[in-house]
């Protein structure tokens, strides 16, 4: 074995357990010695003499067998812990050298400015580049090198392994850190593809350890695809671990860490983690409520923070934030009124006190896109047409959605009440939500129209009452699950004559319909009395139940049909079966419900850096000769592409390399897109080697970028020692059996 060789373990804890397991034979031996039979003996002098003569030999035999057993168990544990031999750079395959793949992390977090050297603002990516250069300089000329960048989506900077060191060096110099997220999973899979597609890709070559993969990254939680605002590992983390295991099975995996997990030297960073309108249906001259979340990801308390919000060039609001302790977050709320309808972009920016700043500037700004409308049309179909005011369900619902006030307040929702027989005359697509209020029955054509309306993205609310013909609803509206009704109707409960009644059940549900009541168990909603409702038989796989009665029966059911939602309110919307409309919470509940059912018009206009912009085109837009244009944050204008999506043709633009507000001009309308950095990049704390081992669960070497010069074995290749170790275990067991038989025969 070369002096430059060393044995390491993929799972050191298992290796320790294996070594500790070596004590098992010793313990068994000691226990065995404690279990013996006693017998009186007369011929003791002969026994003592025989023992005097044999004692040394017997002890030697016993120690030999015990050592073999102990060694076998220890080796078994070590074999299970994934031992591998790291060999020097000179051990590559003769004539072919070693394949070395560099994965450079150029994600957003690598823009973080380090304070390692005072007055010298270097970024983490500068350290990555320097580490890559050092590694390139240390590789023997006979080795081939490939280069992969990890900014999402991962890509090859050097397409095929090459020995042209100057070319690779130039590609390293050309790579810059952008604002994209990290795609370690994709990078590792590209590395695996590179190995398999090369001459090192055969299984035999992989076992020789002549392939080394270097990941040069800050190795934060985001690098592993983890959601920094969630506790549980994300699927992306599991994917990264799977890809890492795949690579580690074929090559030596070396993680070169930039930055230090040490809390004292960790970088300070605060970030806006969320900026969005909480009013689901913004309308002109109606206050729109916004939420701004700020989190301190650093290890020092931050004071004097403020958030400034602009709508393009218009200053909207400045909010001072309280002191933020490390790891803590704060939420700021504000409302704004917009006097024009259309797509708007807003910017929230974090402002630090004085000259101070944090390590990463990219996450201090966050953008939001909203679309204000003159009003949101809602069609209410009244089952009792002609009833005046609050005498019917439609009346209560209309009042709840747009209360009449002396002050002349505007509301986003604009309900219109029609009779069932007028429904066929309405253009359903002109409405966001349609509500059937205690409608006895509808013509089949009307049900089909509603079905198409919902499938196209509209929202349908069905409330029940005495007039509803349940068999008709089940047959025509539910239609065995193929219709527009959210669930099959059962019998009214309680039966006629039973006056027991029930109440709604409080649950801390995060559902948007009931989230306002999550912390209000004593609110009027849960005090209201329900004298009757219709039992249902929902399909649990396709149906949400945001609200239930005390006995567990569903009160509100929501089923997604196509791009829209169908909701069933299982009691009446008026005072016929419940006194809920008399409670103030009725307004909030119904407003939330209708807002939830209304189609989301701007959800696709909030994306992360690197994700494409896509705006659906109408047939009229397709017929226009000019291509949609995209105005970039830096003032440049680019042309969007046309692509076929699932639900039609859309104008798309993929060059979202920077965060900001992008404006796409489609069919004479401007659509503002908010492009933000992945907030997971804001957590700049690198994972420790132990944390990495727990997450990746594969064998790897870890070295800090600052220690590359001192780590000569980084250029070494690895050889899997599991199989030789198992072979040695087998040999030891055979030797033990043979010696035990031999010693036994000699003794017997």
């Amino acid at each position, binding site marked *: 074995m070369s002096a430059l060789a060393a044995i390491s373990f993929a799972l050191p804890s298992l290796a320790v357990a294996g070594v500790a397991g070596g004590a098992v034979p010793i313990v068994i031996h000691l226990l065995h010695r404690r279990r013996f039979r006693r017998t009186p003996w007369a011929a*003791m002098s002969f026994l003592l003499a025989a023992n005097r003569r044999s004692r040394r030999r017997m002890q030697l035999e016993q120690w030999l067998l015990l050592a073999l057993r102990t060694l076998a168990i220890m080796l078994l544990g070590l074999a299970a812990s994934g031992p591998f031999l790291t060999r020097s750079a000179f051990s590559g395959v003769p004539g072919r050298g070693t394949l070395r793949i560099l994965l450079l992390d150029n994600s957003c977090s690598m823009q973080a400015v380090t304070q390692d050297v005072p007055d010298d603002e270097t970024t983490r990516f500068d350290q990555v580049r320097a580490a890559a250069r050092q590694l390139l300089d240390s590789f023997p000329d006979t080795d081939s090198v490939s280069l992969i960048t990890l900014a999402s989506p991962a890509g090859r900077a050097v397409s095929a392994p090459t020995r042209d060191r100057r070319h690779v060096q130039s590609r390293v110099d050309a790579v810059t850190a952008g604002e994209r997220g990290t795609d370690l999973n994709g990078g590792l899979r590209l590395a695996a593809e590179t190995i398999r597609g090369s001459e090192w890709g055969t299984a035999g070559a992989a076992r020789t350890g002549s392939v080394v993969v270097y990941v040069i990254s800050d190795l934060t939680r985001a690098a592993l695809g983890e959601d920094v605002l969630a506790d549980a590992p994300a699927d992306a983390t599991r994917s990264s671990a799977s890809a890492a295991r795949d690579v580690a099975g074929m090559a030596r995996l070396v993680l070169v860490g930039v930055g230090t997990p040490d809390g004292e030297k960790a970088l300070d960073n605060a970030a806006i983690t969320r900026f969005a309108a909480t009013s689901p249906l913004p309308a002109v001259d109606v206050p729109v409520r916004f939420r701004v979340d700020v989190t301190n990801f650093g290890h020092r308390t931050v004071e004097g923070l403020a958030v400034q919000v602009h709508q393009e060039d218009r200053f909207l609001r400045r909010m001072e934030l309280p002191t933020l302790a490390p790891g803590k977050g704060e939420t700021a709320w504000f409302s704004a009124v917009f006097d024009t309808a259309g797509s708007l972009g807003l910017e929230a920016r974090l402002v630090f006190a004085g000259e101070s700043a944090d390590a990463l500037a990219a996450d201090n700004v966050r953008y939001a896109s909203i679309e204000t409308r003159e009003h949101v049309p809602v069609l209410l179909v009244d089952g009792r047409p002609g009833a005046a005011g609050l005498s019917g369900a439609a009346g209560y619902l209309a009042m709840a959605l747009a209360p009449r006030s002396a002050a002349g307040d505007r509301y986003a929702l604009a309900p219109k009440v029609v009779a069932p027989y007028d429904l066929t005359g309405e253009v359903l697509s002109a409405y966001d939500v349609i509500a059937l209020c205690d409608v006895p029955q509808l013509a089949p054509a009307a049900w089909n129209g509603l079905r198409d309306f919902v499938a196209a993205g509209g929202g349908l609310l069905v409330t029940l009452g005495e007039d509803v013909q349940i068999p008709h609803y089940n047959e025509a509206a539910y239609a065995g699950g193929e219709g527009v009704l959210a669930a099959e109707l059962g019998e009214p409960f309680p039966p006629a004559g039973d006056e027991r009644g029930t109440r709604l059940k409080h649950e801390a549900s995060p559902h948007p319909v009931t989230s306002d009541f999550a912390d209000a168990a004593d609110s009027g909603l849960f005090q209201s009395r329900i004298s009757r409702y219709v039992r249902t038989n929902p399909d649990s796989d396709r149906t949400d139940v945001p609200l239930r009665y005390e006995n567990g029966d569903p009160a509100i059911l929501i089923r997604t049909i196509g791009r829209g939602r169908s909701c069933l309110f299982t009691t009446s919307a008026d005072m016929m079966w419940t006194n809920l409309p008399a409670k103030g919470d009725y307004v909030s509940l119904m407003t939330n419900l209708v807002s939830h059912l209304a189609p989301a018009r701007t959800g696709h206009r909030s994306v992360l850096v690197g994700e494409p912009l896509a705006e659906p085109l109408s047939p009229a837009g397709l017929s226009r000769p000019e291509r949609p244009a995209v105005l970039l944050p830096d003032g440049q204008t680019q042309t969007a592409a046309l692509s076929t999506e699932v639900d039609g043709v859309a104008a798309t633009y993929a060059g979202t390399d920077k965060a900001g507000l992008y404006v796409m001009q489609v069919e004479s309308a401007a659509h503002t897109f908010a492009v933000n950095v992945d907030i997971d990049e804001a957590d700049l704390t690198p994972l420790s080697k132990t944390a990495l081992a727990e997450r990746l669960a594969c064998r790897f070497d870890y070295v800090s970028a600052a220690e590359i010069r001192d780590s000569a074995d980084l250029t070494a290749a690895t050889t899997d020692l599991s199989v030789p170790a198992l072979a040695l275990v087998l040999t030891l067991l055979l030797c033990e059996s043979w010696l035990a038989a031999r010693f036994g025969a000699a003794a017997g």
Partner: protein
Amino acid sequence: MAETGQHAMPQEAAGEAPRRPTPPRDYRKYLDPQVLARISGLQLRARLAVAGLYAGMHRSPYRGVSVEFADHRPYTQSDDIRHIDWRLFGRTDRYFVKEYEQDTNLNCILAVDCSESMAYRSDAAPLSKHEYATAVAASLAYLALTQRDSVGLALFDRRITRFRKPSNHPSLWRPLIDDLQVSIGPARTSLRAVLDDLAERVSRGVVVLISDLFDDPQETLRGLQHLRYRGNDVIVFNVWDPAELTFPFRGPTRFEGLEEQGRLLVEPRALRRRYQAQTEAFRATLDRGCRAMQADYVVCDTSAPLGPALSAYLATRGVRARACSSRTRGGGQR
């Protein structure tokens, strides 16, 4: 097969009328320790063992005691005129006296080891070594008394604890049996001192030593030499338990030595060969030493029949009787 009724009890040998012959029975089974172990009384054990011994013989040359004519010699002065053969005087007109073969009267000393090591009995043995030794001693005593030999007894451990002078009186039988039934003490064996002491007490007899001989064999042989020096014939019965011969133990065992020899925790399988070599060497030393001094050395396995032990005594007695006869022939001492 001989009729068991031919064998006289000590009282019969002393001149009482012989009992009526009993129905034929196979007494040879009483030589088997397995059978003897089921017989509680030592007295009965001994009688049945001797009966078994006789039942195995075709002819008993030792039956009864007689004064047999050997030869004539000329009458000399001081000869008792009662021995003059008057019929021969009538034919030859000369005085001749009859010569007879004198019936020897052996002094047999039974030396029985009562040390703690004799208490050992393994699971494979029906009798402990001491029980076996007392059965042999009682049988020999009974056998000797039926031959009108004198029987003495010496019980010993580190010293002689009980000594009974030789006597051929039939009434000796019961107290001798009582003596043999003493319990074993915790003392160790010290054969050299015992044999030296015994040599000072008896001479020109037959000393039957019944012991496991767990002592220094060289010292034991010197003690036996002392007995031989005093004109004694020596028969050594070396009593072994079968476990002491085969060492059949398995698994870790702690051997707790009798006679305060400590304890030892060992794996018996690993020691068996060397242990057996040790015991064989021990027996070989004693056998060689006894042969050199013309003493009989008999190894007795407590799971084996008593026959060889008893036969050894009879063989020695026969040799002894013939030797005495040849020495006294012509002596006319009767």
